[in-house]
């Protein structure tokens, strides 16, 4: 028989290394030849989209089209440390470093332009890579023309920034601290499952996600992270298990270690909550790891809702479900009170 159930789980996730570890990111922005603006960052984009995110941030601050932003990715000869692409930290850390570097560059653009135009900052306007006096917008200088003039004076139009927030080590006795992580991401998921009580197979039908990610700089990327993380959570809940015996992994391949396929993917309904409650760039927080955490407990709860049996051992395989159902049946027969 097929039984349906619903489960919910809510998580909060402090991202970045936190707990007083020195965690920072350095980036620079400079006016480059051929109509480009160069951003130097070592942030590694492994598909999560950090380079898209920081391109958007730089373009937003410098008021240019994203196509103008060029990124030099990781190269230890040319670029300073941006820290790892881990701990859900790059949007927050490198996003802030790039934002500050871009703001620094913008300040320099204003500074040198004010000398050129013999004007005050507040009397200057900026649009599409041009700077001009508000009282005479036709007499404008492009960022690149300005950079040439700055170069002639022996200087260059660029800025570097480091984002290095403070976090505190928790008190060893109480575990408490004023600021253990830079910020927290909150995610609630409701999962609908269908459990086949004859085979023990669980199908995840639909996942509703509400994620407070501060600000979605690229909503499509954020949703992509949530969907990908959720399906990893489905794997953790239902199928993924590294079997180790005497130090040897018995299933070191994708035939023995199963991960979700397109057949396991549910329907999604995702809502992004843009609360802007942190010091992230434009209020953005990290979404990578938080996307995967709520799914597994929500599925376990949904299975309990569907069949009334609680399974505490992951992954919740068909064998475990059938065994638990059988145990309950036997206990019911001998009149033992159910104890879940």
């Amino acid at each position: 028989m097929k039984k349906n159930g619903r489960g919910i789980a809510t998580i909060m996730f402090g991202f970045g290394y936190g707990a007083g570890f020195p965690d920072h990111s350095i980036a620079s922005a400079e006016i480059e030849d051929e109509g480009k603006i160069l951003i130097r960052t070592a942030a590694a984009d492994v598909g999560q989209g950090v380079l898209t995110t920081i391109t958007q941030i730089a373009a937003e601050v410098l008021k240019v089209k994203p196509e103008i932003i060029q990124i030099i990715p990781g190269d230890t000869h040319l670029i300073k440390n941006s820290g790892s692409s881990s701990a859900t930290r790059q949007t927050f850390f490198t996003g802030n470093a790039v934002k500050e570097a871009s703001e620094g560059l913008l300040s320099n653009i204003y500074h040198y332009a004010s000398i050129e135009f013999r004007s005050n900052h507040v009397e200057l306007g900026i649009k599409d890579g041009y700077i001009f006096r508000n009282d005479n917008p036709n007499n404008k200088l492009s960022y690149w023309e300005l950079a040439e003039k700055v170069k002639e004076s022996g200087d260059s139009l660029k800025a570097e920034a480091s984002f290095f927030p403070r976090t505190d080590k928790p008190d060893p006795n109480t575990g408490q601290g004023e600021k253990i992580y830079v910020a927290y991401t909150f995610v609630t998921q409701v999962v609908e499952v269908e459990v086949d009580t004859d085979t023990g197979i669980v199908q995840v039908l639909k996942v509703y996600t509400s994620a407070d990610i501060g600000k979605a700089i690229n909503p499509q990327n954020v949703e992509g992270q949530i969907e990908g993380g959720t399906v990893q959570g489905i794997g953790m809940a239902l199928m993924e298990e590294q079997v180790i015996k005497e130090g040897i992994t018995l299933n070191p391949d994708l035939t023995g270690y199963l991960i979700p396929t397109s057949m396991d993917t549910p329907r999604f309904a995702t809502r992004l909550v843009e609360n802007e409650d942190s010091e992230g760039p434009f209020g953005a927080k990290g979404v990578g790891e938080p996307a995967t955490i709520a799914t597994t407990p929500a599925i376990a709860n949904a299975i309990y809702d569907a069949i009334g049996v609680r399974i505490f051992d992951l992954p919740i395989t068909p064998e475990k479900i059938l065994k638990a159902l059988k145990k309950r049946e036997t206990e019911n027969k001998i009149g033992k009170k159910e104890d879940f």
Partner: protein
Amino acid sequence: MKHKIRFTINGEVKEIEVQPNKTLLKMLREDLDLIGVKEGCGAGECGACTVLVNNKPVNSCLMLAVEVDGKEILTIEGLSDGINLDPLQESFLKHNAIQCGYCTPGMVMSAKALLNRNSHPKEEDVKEALAGNLCRCTGYKRIVDAVLDAVKKGGGK
């Protein structure tokens, strides 16, 4: 001893000599420089190396190069004419159906094979056709959406 084989690759006839134990995957990548074909597991489990041989999707890591003698191969490099992308490729871009991108060439080729045999697949058909192509990043939703959108736009012809 090397074997001389002759086949059509992305519309071009090629004749080369290959070792009898060389896989199609290695020949494509090492001899023909078609590095859009990815090696994932190398054991037929992940689908990253999917190419079309006589219009059917195969794991090129499991096929010997000598087996393609007289056959027609299509890889990801053969989908675009150099100017215009294939509707499937366009659709993958539009739907952000790519994260790290490693599974993408195989995904697109499996989708292409599906559209070759069924020009109006339903969602379930798409999911089934892609079930042999593993993706760890996207959760598959955007990939399935991309294929269905390409169908809607006439990508299945």
